[in-house]
C-alpha cells in the first residue's frame, strides 16, 4: 500500500488515488494527421520499465486533480511528483 504525495494536498494513502498510466503521452490536436503507426504508438504502446516510470495519478478522493509522479516500478518508491505541464523532474541517477 503506497503513500503518494499529492502536489496539492500532501502525502496521502493510495486508496485516495486512481492510476492513469504512463505520463507525457502527447495527444496531437489534429489526430487525423497521424499515420496508422503513429496513432497505434500513441494508443497502444506503453513503456513497461523495471525502474523509473513517469506516470499519471488522479487524486479522485481528494482535490480531484491529476498530476504526474516518477515511481520506481521495482521498489515502488515515489521519486518525484509534479503538476501537469511541468517538465519531468530530474530524479535519481
Amino acid at each position, binding site marked *: 500500500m503506497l503513500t503518494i504525495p499529492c502536489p496539492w494536498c500532501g502525502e496521502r494513502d493510495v486508496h485516495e488515488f486512481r492510476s492513469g498510466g504512463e505520463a507525457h503521452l502527447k495527444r496531437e490536436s489534429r489526430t*487525423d494527421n*497521424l499515420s496508422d503507426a503513429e496513432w497505434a504508438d500513441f494508443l497502444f504502446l506503453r513503456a513497461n520499465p523495471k525502474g523509473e516510470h513517469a506516470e499519471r495519478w488522479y487524486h479522485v478522493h481528494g482535490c480531484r486533480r491529476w498530476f504526474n509522479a516518477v515511481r520506481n516500478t521495482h521498489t515502488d518508491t515515489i521519486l518525484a511528483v509534479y503538476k*501537469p505541464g511541468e517538465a519531468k523532474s530530474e530524479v535519481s541517477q
Partner: protein
Amino acid sequence: MSQSHRLPAGGRIDRSRSLSFTFDGTRYSGHPGDTLASALIANGVHLVGRSFKYHRPRGILTAGSEEPNALIQLGLGNRTEPNIRATQIELYDGLTAASQNRFPSLEFDLGAVNDTLSPLIPAGFYYKTFMWPQRGWMTYERAIRRMAGLGRAPDGPDPDRYEYRHAHCDVLVAGGGAAGLAAALAAGRAGARVIIADEQAEMGGWLLSEGDTEISAKPAVDWVEKAVTELAGMENVTLLRRTTAFGYYDHNWLGLAERVTDHLGPYAADHLPRQRLWQVRAKQVVLATGAIERPLVFGQNDRPGIMLAASLRSYISRYGARPGKALVVFTNNDSGYRTALAAHHAGIGVAAIIDSRAEASGPLPQSARAAGLRIYEGHAIIATTGRLRVDSVRLGRLAASGDRIEGAGFGIPCDLVAMSGGWNPNVSLFSQSRGKLDFRAEDGVFVPGQSFQPLRSAGACNGVLSTADCLAEGFAAGAEAAREAGFANRKPAALKVTEPDCPAAAPFWLAPPEKPLARAKCFVDFQNDVTAADLKLAVREGFQSVEHVKRYTTTGMGTDQGRTSNVNALAIVSATLGMEMPAVGTTTFRPPYTPTSFGAIAGRNIGALFDPVRRTPIHEWHAAHGAKFENVGQWVRAWYYPKPGEDMHAAVNREVKAARTGVGILDASTLGKIMVKGPDAAEFLNRVYTNSWLKLGIGKARYGLMLGEDGMVRDDGVTVRLGEDRFLMSTTTGNAATVMTSLEDYLQTEWPELKVYLTSVTEQYATITINGPKSRELLAALTDDIDTGNEAFPHMSLREGTVAGVPARVIRISFTGELSFEINVRASQGKAVWEALIEAGAPFDITPYGTEAMHVLRAEKGFIIVGQETDGSMTPDDLGMGWAVSKVKPDFVGKRSLTRSDTVREGRKQLVGLLTEDPKEVLEEGAHVVQVALQQPPMAMLGHVTSSYYSPNLERSIALAVLKGGRALIGKTLSVPMPDKVIKVTVTEPVFFDPKGERANG
C-alpha cells in the same frame, strides 16, 4: 482428568485452577497458561492428526505458529474454525476441539491405506494420473477432495464481530522476544511512538522457555516482566499481545491480526470484537521475528512423539508438561544437549543423545557427559518404529562422508524423540518486504541482506543465536530506528547474560536411511507429506528451479508455507543437482505469515455495510407502493410495481402498455448529471462528443455519443444548453463517475487552456419522466408558466418554469419513442412533485413504471444501452449510429480510431434485431447465435443476444443482438442453440416499433 503427564512443579501455568476441555469427544483437563497442545501433552496425547496425502498418524512437532501437523477443528456450529494450530490455541474452560483429515477416527483411519500404497503415490502423482482424459478430472477431483483436504468451514454465517484499526507509528516492532523487547525499550525511551506486536499470549518469546538463561543475574523471565512493565507504563508505546504481523506491504504498511477474544471462548465480553485487523503505517520497522528450529530429515521422522528439540524444552520449562518417559535426542549441534539436560533435570529418562558430528566437545556436551547421559557421536537415526507413537529408534554409525551408514544398525526403545538441525532465521516478513536474502554457508541459513524499505532486522531473525547478541541487536536496532524517525537517543547499555554457549550448527541435511530412500519415508514437509525421495524424483524428472520443484511436489505449499521444511527441501534439491544452495534459489514468502481469518479481513464491511447503497429522493414512495427493486451499480431502482395478483410479466406488460396509450411515470433520478460551465464549455463538448455542439441553441437538447480514444462507444446521453456558457450533461446511471474522471483528465492534462469547470450534480436533482400520449395534458395541468404546446415546446428542447409550484427544468426528450417530458427539480422537492403528478394524473390513470418496462420500451425502439448493447468493442457504426458522428469536425476523442484498419474492416459485429419463429419464445440474453446449429460445440459463432424481452405492444418477443456482418444478414434465418433445443430466429432491423419515429413528435 488426571493430567498424567504433568510435571510436579514448574511452568508458567496456574495450577490453582483447572480447565476442562474435549478433544475428539474425550474430556481432559489443563490449566490457565496452557495451549491446547501443551494440555494434550500433559494428558499423554501426542496423536493429533492425520497427514494430508498418506493419512499417516501425526503428533505435535513444535510449540509455536510454525506447527505443520497439529491442525485442529476448533469450536462448534457457526463458530467452528478449521486448521487452527493447537500450539496457538489458548485453553479455556469448555473448549471443544477435534482432529481433522481422518475417517472414521484418528486411531483407525481408512485413508491410511494411502500410506500402504505410497510407493504408488510419488511426487506429481495427481498431475500424472488425473490428467487424462481431461473430462475425467471432474470425477477424480471430487473423490480426491473427500479423501484429502483439511478441516471444514462452518455452514452458516459467522456470528462474531470483527473490527479494523488504522494506526501510524514511528517504530513498529514485529516480535516480542529478547530482541523485540529490547528494540521497543530503546525506541520507547527515546520518545518514539512504538507499536510492538507478538503473536503469543505473553511477550518474551523463547526467554519464556529457557530455564537456564539469566539476565543481570536473574532468571530471564524476570527481565521480561520488568521490560513489559516498563513498556506498559510508556504512553507512547502500544503493546499488542496475541497479535500477528502477518503482512508487510509497500511503504512500510503492515497488517496485524489481533486475536482479541479468541482465548476467552464463550467468556468473551459482548462489547469486544473477536479479532481486530490493524493497518499500521510505520516510519521505521524493526523485525524481531526470531528463528525456527530445523527438523532433521531421517527415516520415518514423522511419528507422533518426535518433536523439535527446543519445543520439547518449551513444553517442559514453560508448560510444566512431560511429553514422554524415555527420550532420544538426535542433533547436529549443541542445543540438542540443552534439551537433553532440561529433560534430565525434569526427571525424564534420557535414553540416548545421537549426534551426527564425529565429535561433540562444547560445554553442553560436557555437561551431558558429566550428568552420565549416553552419547552416540558420529551416529544418525536410520529408522523409527511405532504405530500411533514412536516406540524405538534405530541408529547406525555414519561413514566419514556422512551419506551412508557403516556396519549394522541397532535399536533403542523410547517414547519421545527430540531433533535439532540448527536454526533458520525467520525471514518471512523480511522477504515479504521485498528484501533480498543472503546465504550463510557455514550453517546453511538465509539471513536478511539488502532491504528496500526502512527496516532493520534484529536478533535470531538476523542470524544471531545467543540471548546476549539478541538483546544487543535489539537495543541497537530500536535506537537507530527511533533516531531515523527523528528521536535522538542513546543506545541502552549492554546487559550481562549467563547462558550455555550454543554455537551455530554445521548443516546435516539428510540422514542415510536404513531402507532404500524411496521407501524410507524421510519427511521434509510434514504437512504436505513430501519426502526426500519425492524431491529427488522431481529433480530426476527435470525440475531444476526450486519454485518448480515446490509446485510439482507441493513442498512448502501448505498452510504453514513450509516454515519447517523450505530450507531442508532446498538443501536436498541443490545437493541432488550438485549445485550451491543460493544458485538453486530461495522461495519467496507471501502474506499472510500465518492464516488470517476472512472475518478479520472483511471487518465491518459485510451485509448492509458491504457497499454503499444509493436511493433516489422518491425511494420511499416506491417502497410504500409495493415496488420491487433492482440494483443498478450502487443505486436501488424501482424495477416494477406489481398490483395484487400480478406476477412480474403481467405487471411489466401493463406498465409498458400504459406508457404507450396513456401516461406512465418513471423515477429517472439516477441518471448521471454533470454541470459543464465556462466560456469554453461548447468547445469542450465538441471535443468529447462525436457530434457538433458549437451551434446548439440555448434551450436546446442534443443526444451525444462519447468514445474512448480507441473509437469504441463509452457513454451516451442527452445534454442541454442552459446558457451561453452552461450545459447540463447526462450520463448513463452506472457510468457517471467514470465519465467525470475522464472529462477531468482531458481538461486538466490535455486541454488546460480551456476554461471549463465540471460539477457533479447527480444527487442535487430529482428527475421524473412522464411518458405517453397524455403526458402533455398532465404537464399542462401542473404548470402555469410553461407553454406545453407542440410548437411552443418542441421535441429536444428545454423550458424552465414551475411544476407543481416548485422551480423546474423540463426537457422534452424521449427514451421510449413516445411524447415524453423529463422534469428536473431540486432533490428535496422530488417526492412532493412526484406525488403531485400522481394525483394530477389520476384522471389519465397514470401508471408508475420501473426499469424493466423502461427497458422493454426502449428495446421496442431499438435504443441501445451502453454496457448492454456495447462491451467496449463497438463503434458508432457497429451500432448503426454513424449518423451521430460528425463528418466535418477536425477532431474529437476517438475520431482517429474510426479509420483504423480494424474498425473499418468487413465482418465486424453489428447491431440487429432478432425475431423468433415462435412469437412466445423469449431468447435468453447472452445466448449465442450461429448460422447452423451442430449436434455439439464447437460451432462458428456469429454473435450474441444483447437484449431480449416480451413486447406487449407487438404481442411477441423481440431481441437485439450483435452479429458479425449483421446488417447483411437481415432477412436471413439463423439459429440459437440452447441446452435443450435450437431456436430459429429471423434477423431484422433493430427498430421494432414506430420505425419512422412519429410518435415522439406528436
